[in-house]
């Protein structure tokens, strides 16, 4: 487990949006999906997901409804709203810019300067 990375502040929201963008999911499902798409490389405490979910719901980027899960249990399913899709596009773009910049900055070799 030690090779899992700590989340940077603010990245959980983006991960949630990305996970949900692939189809409506309940909370536990979102966690599983994040693990799946990140190759289990990120450490997220399970409970920490929920305050993030509620915040996004309150901001209107997610909408939620109660339904029945594949385990035949009652669960709340989340999906993206139009605002959510827009937010995901923008934040992905800005994340990519940041990552590219960080990558090139940290990867720079002495002779390139």
């Amino acid at each position, binding site marked *: 487990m030690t090779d899992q990375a700590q989340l940077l502040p603010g990245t959980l929201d983006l991960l949630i949006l990305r996970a949900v963008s692939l189809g409506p999911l*309940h*909370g*536990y*499902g979102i966690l599983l999906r994040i693990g799946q798409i990140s190759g289990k490389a990120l450490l997220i*405490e*399970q*409970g*920490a997901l*929920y*305050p*993030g*979910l*509620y*915040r996004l719901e*309150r901001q209107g980027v997610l909408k939620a409804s109660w339904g029945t*899960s594949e*385990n035949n*249990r*009652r*669960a*709340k399913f989340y999906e993206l709203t139009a605002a959510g899709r827009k937010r995901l596009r923008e934040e992905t773009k800005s994340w990519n810019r940041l990552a590219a910049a960080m990558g090139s900055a940290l990867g720079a070799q002495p002779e390139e300067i």
Partner: protein
Amino acid sequence: MKFLGWFRSVAAKLFHRSRIVDDVEQELGSHIQHRADDLERSGLDRREAERLARIEFGGRERYKEESYQALGGNSIEILIHDVRFSLRLLRKSPGFTAAAILTLALAIGANAVVFGVLNALVLRPLNLPQEQSLYGIDRGGIGFESYPNYRDLRDRNHSFEDLAAYTMTLAGLDTGNDPSPVWGFEATGNYFDMLGVHPYLGRVFHASDEHGPNSAPYVVLNYSYWHVHFQDDRGVVGRIVLVNKHPFTIIGVTPPEFHGSMIFFAPSFYVPLVNQEQVQGESVLDARGNRRGIIEALGHLKPGVTTAQAVADLNAIGADLEKTYPKEDSKMVFTLARPGLGGDFLGAPIRAFVAGLMLLSVLILLAACANLGSLFGARAADRSREVALRLALGSSRRRILRQLLTEAMLISLGGGTVGLLGSLVLLRQLSVWQPFPRIPMTVPLSPDSKVYGVALALALVSGILFGIVPVRQVLKANPYEIIKAGAAARMGRRITFRDVLLAVQIAICAVLVTSSLVAVRGLVRSLHSNFGFDPQNVMLVNTDLNMAGYRGDRVLPMQKRMLEAMATIPGVKSVGLTDLPPLALDGHRMDIYSDKSTDLRPSNAAAQPFMFNVSPGYFEAAGTALISGRSFTWHDDKDAPRVAVINQDFARTIFGSVTNAMGAYFKLRDGTRVEVVGIVEDGKYFSLAEKQSPAMFLPIMQSPPSLLQSPSSFAWLVVRSNGDQQMLGAAIRSKLRELDEGLPAYISPWLTEMDAVLFAPRTATVALGVLGVLGAMLSITGIFGMAAYSVSKRMRELGIRMALGAQRKEVLQAALGRSIKLLALGSIAGLALGILASRVLAVIVYQATSRDPIVLAGVVLAMALLGLLATWIPAQRAMSIDPLRLLREE
């Protein structure tokens, strides 16, 4: 709309609180079940899977809390939670709660009362339409002005929309049965129209009703007079009543909310000023030099005119008047004043007094806050174990502080509510209070939203003030240390913030105790000081012969008959008559000139002594000692040489000495030479706090022609007796009835009449006394809290000391030494400050001085007694410590 939306979401959250809680609860539960399903699939049994799922989930309560916060319903949730928790805590220590609420209630109540008075007297004077543009005109600190000057100001200014004026008058009003003296206003015709007052019934008079002297015999009744004396009879309009025996027609009634244009004084009726001669039996409407023409001229500034422009405008007219009428007008420099106070005549001292009172009551509130702050600090220290436990269990410091502040707020709101309710009762009683028996005072103290607002704001601010005291304590708290060491571990020797608070609070209380003692002593002394007359065993009979129709030459013989009739009453030792008794907060001052002076302009006057017109026998009746020469006889009449009796101060300032003054001459304004035939002792003539002033007494038979008329019909009989005052009053009344059935008269002991003069010092003394008592109570609770806390903290230590053989004295010293040291320190600082503060007091309370051994000893004694009282119970507790039991328990 945004706010509305927010409100709706908060309200929805409150009402659907349980739904949200259930929702979150269910969702988190569902998550754990899903996780457990997965774990079960990997081979664990169900119970183990669920346990593991819960562990993996992390701090469920914490995430629940954060979830509520994310949902936006959190602050309300926490608030409700905190309020419930705080109420439970407060209920568990009823003594502390009651003491805190009572302390605050007293402090906030005192502030609300003082602010209510301030609000009524200074901030919201008259309750008239468009009052913000309404100004009174003031000249040299008072609003009095002569009628011709007023007319010039009114007609020639470009700054006011209109200028109206009024003066007070006491007239015999005969509505058909019993003629009784009633206070009213003589007002200019434009008075009601300028103020924007519309009649409740009938009509009011207008400028168009004025057609020269005595042309408008109309009377407008004030609502409350009409309500009481005519029982709301709507048929009074058109009825004829007699005002000083002259027929006037009632034309209307003013609306209930209108009480005239003076702040303290509610007239019963209004008559046109042009009818002054009929109402007062004399008219000053043509006397430009007589500033008793009107009490105040007032008007609305034109839109866009600043006060500075208006003052410049008035002063230009004033300068011109000075040039045109050099004999009558001087020092024509005007300012604008708040209306309703006779220029700044009443305004300045009232403002100073109320502001001083406000300052003192804010001090009280600060002392209360310091007091509660140290109590709260102590309480928080007591709860440090609980706080440490909560911190260790993951509660945030913010959360704990929030709860502490909620507790402080609950107490401050509770105290504020109780204090406000108390002050409402007090204000209601104050507004129906009539301090002067003869004058209809009204102080509309009905508290408005401003008073409620201030009380609420004060409660909240003080809640924050004393609520933040424990903040530092909580922020610094190290849960590990506290739980390990136990709560009683730290008992530092160094001076803490709480000690400073307590010392400051005691100092403030000592200031209040000092000032109240100084005021009380001053009052007691001023009651026993030498007034230059002796009001004991003297009845004053206030008559106005004009009210009974006596005028001109008929006045003097009637007054002589009255004096003779009084002298025949058994027990009466001496009788005199004066146009005005001294020390009645009223006084005529008159310019006099040296005998050599030929230029008799006001600026050239040698002195401006108080002037009294008195009858033969007055000095004996008033108890004023004659130092040399003679008093008046009935032979000092119009045909005899003009004579005067002067006081010692007059003799010294004008003639150098008493011996020089005897037989010397001085000149009156009209050039008459007057010979000094007698000299009497110095006295007080206007108010108790005045400086020694010159005074002259002239015989009523010779009253100078520059006065309105000679002799004055308005006079006071001074009847000195050694009999029973009650019986004397009845005898005087029946004698007067024998002389004239229709003569209204006020009869009262001179001491009662002096109530007016003593009103200011008495009010100051009562107010300061109340504040002093409040301060004393606060210092008791403060010292008590501190001492009790220190004893309870050190129970174990004291027990060990006793077990090791410490004497009771040593135990007491250890337990209470600190409180007593603080008390001494605070008292000394407070005493020093109090002495400084009493210099201010000396302005209001005659003979208030702090350099008085009795006051100093009194303060020291009072503070010592307070300390004793406050440390008594804690000391008892410390003494009754049973070391064995105590050590076994801990």
